[in-house]
């Protein structure tokens, strides 16, 4: 019995295997991608068609230029709002895994336990990226201009993925705290909606209700939207990027460790 090799944890390989499984499920069941890909585009077109012509900025610039300025402001907000509202699906998928016989199977295997969480997040990164690419592709004919061309677009996609992942990790921890899938389905979207709307995603902080302003200023959604706006404008990145970087690191590390602890807890 002692001749069997000692078991070594392989968190990276196991995470990749779990991510591969989740992506394969999407590939074999393409219907599951319809909602996450169609819904953001519908919302983008609706938002821009309804609000995109609002005058914005200095009246002296003229109504046409002002409306263009609001689109330029609004579309980064919609990209981040979409990532924020997609993030809870990571937590829900994790709870679905946890409640199935597959979770027991995973726990009985000599595999890295954190891989179930990390693999889920890694697969969802692909969803976040697909959404961001699609939104940028639809936003261009709607009048959204990105300075720096493809590199600028790539930077926006990368940032959206990082931001979505941070919130996906947070949603995983919340979901595991709630424990019950049906409860989580009803509860997880409230903090996401609050994060998305109590921010500068749709309007500058100074235009929000007074009580919202301090929350909106601290909100990572505000920082992320600001970074995307700066990327689209082609400069002035330093301040919002540092703030966003701090948020992302904190959101991935702290809820990530708490979620992993909760997933690993013996029962």
């Amino acid at each position, binding site marked *: 019995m002692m001749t069997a090799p000692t078991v070594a944890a392989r968190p990276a390989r196991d995470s990749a295997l779990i991510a591969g499984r989740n992506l*394969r499920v999407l590939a074999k069941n393409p219907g599951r991608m319809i909602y996450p890909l169609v819904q953001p585009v519908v919302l983008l077109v609706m938002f821009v068609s309804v609000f995109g012509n609002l005058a914005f900025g200095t009246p002296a610039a003229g109504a046409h230029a002002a409306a263009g300025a609001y689109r330029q402001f609004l579309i980064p907000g919609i990209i981040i709002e979409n990532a924020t509202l997609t993030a809870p699906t990571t937590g829900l998928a994790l709870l679905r895994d946890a409640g*199935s*016989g*597959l979770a*027991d199977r*995973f*726990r009985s295997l*000599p595999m890295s336990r954190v891989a179930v969480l990390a693999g889920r997040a890694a697969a969802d990164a692909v969803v976040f990226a697909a959404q961001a690419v699609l939104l940028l592709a639809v936003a261009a004919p709607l009048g959204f201009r990105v300075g720096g061309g493809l590199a600028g677009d790539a930077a926006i996609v990368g940032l959206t993925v990082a931001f979505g992942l941070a919130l996906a990790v947070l949603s995983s921890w919340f979901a595991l705290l709630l424990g019950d899938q049906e409860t989580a389905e009803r509860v997880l979207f409230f903090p996401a909606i609050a994060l998305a709307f109590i921010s500068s995603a749709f309007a500058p902080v100074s235009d929000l209700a007074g009580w919202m302003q301090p929350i909106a200023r601290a909100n990572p959604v505000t920082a992320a939207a600001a970074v995307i706006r700066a990327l689209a404008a082609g400069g002035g990145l330093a301040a919002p990027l540092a703030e966003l970087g701090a948020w992302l690191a904190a959101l991935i590390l702290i809820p990530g460790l708490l979620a992993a602890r909760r997933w690993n807890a013996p029962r």
Partner: protein
Amino acid sequence: MTDPTPAIEVAGVKKAFGRVKALDGVDLTVRQGSLTALLGPNGAGKTTLVRIIATLSRPDQGTVRVLGFDVARQPAEVRARIGLTGQYAGLEEALSGRDNLMLIGRLAGLRRAAARARAAELTAGFGLSGAENRLVKTYSGGMRRRLDLAASLMARPSLLVLDEPTTGLDPGSRQQLWTVLMDLKAEGTTMLLTTQYLEEADRFADLLYLLDHGKVIASGTADALKAGAKAASLDDVFLALTGNAAAG
């Protein structure tokens, strides 16, 4: 010289969930190469014991050793040597049978080529040829059970732990599953299983443990248990010892 290490050694194990004592001092030994059946009414603690042995749950008190490794302190060593077929299929319904076997085999540590070969061997051996590329959600109950068992066997475990492997299957599927289990036994795989079908335990198990209220109330071979209780069948032994008319 025979290996003196038992496949499973359970000593003084207690486990409570809140006020409910699921296990209240269980001792049990499973010899390597044997097939041992855990019997008992619903709620007797069978699944709790199986989950502790498979490292899914930890005992509050007592020790469990699997092939010499402590389940609480060396769970990774235990996991590398066991296969678990739980009460609920541990499968991804939205993937094909082959994808499931590949995933579980690779997570169990097999290389890609080895996993592919083993998956092909098991699908053929378990009568799943032709269905391996179909999504599991299209499988019948019997096919699902066989695939679940195949998944547990990907890494050729020394010990196979099965929680009610034949529950819910029609007689044909049950017989098919037992044929597979007997072949595994012939190859030297140790098995511990729970079942509500006492005639299966009577026919196939080397040793039986009867659990009730979290305690072992009887153990021995089927013949010894029947002789001891002066009963014609294990059903009668079960009813006499548990005082439980509703055995299901």
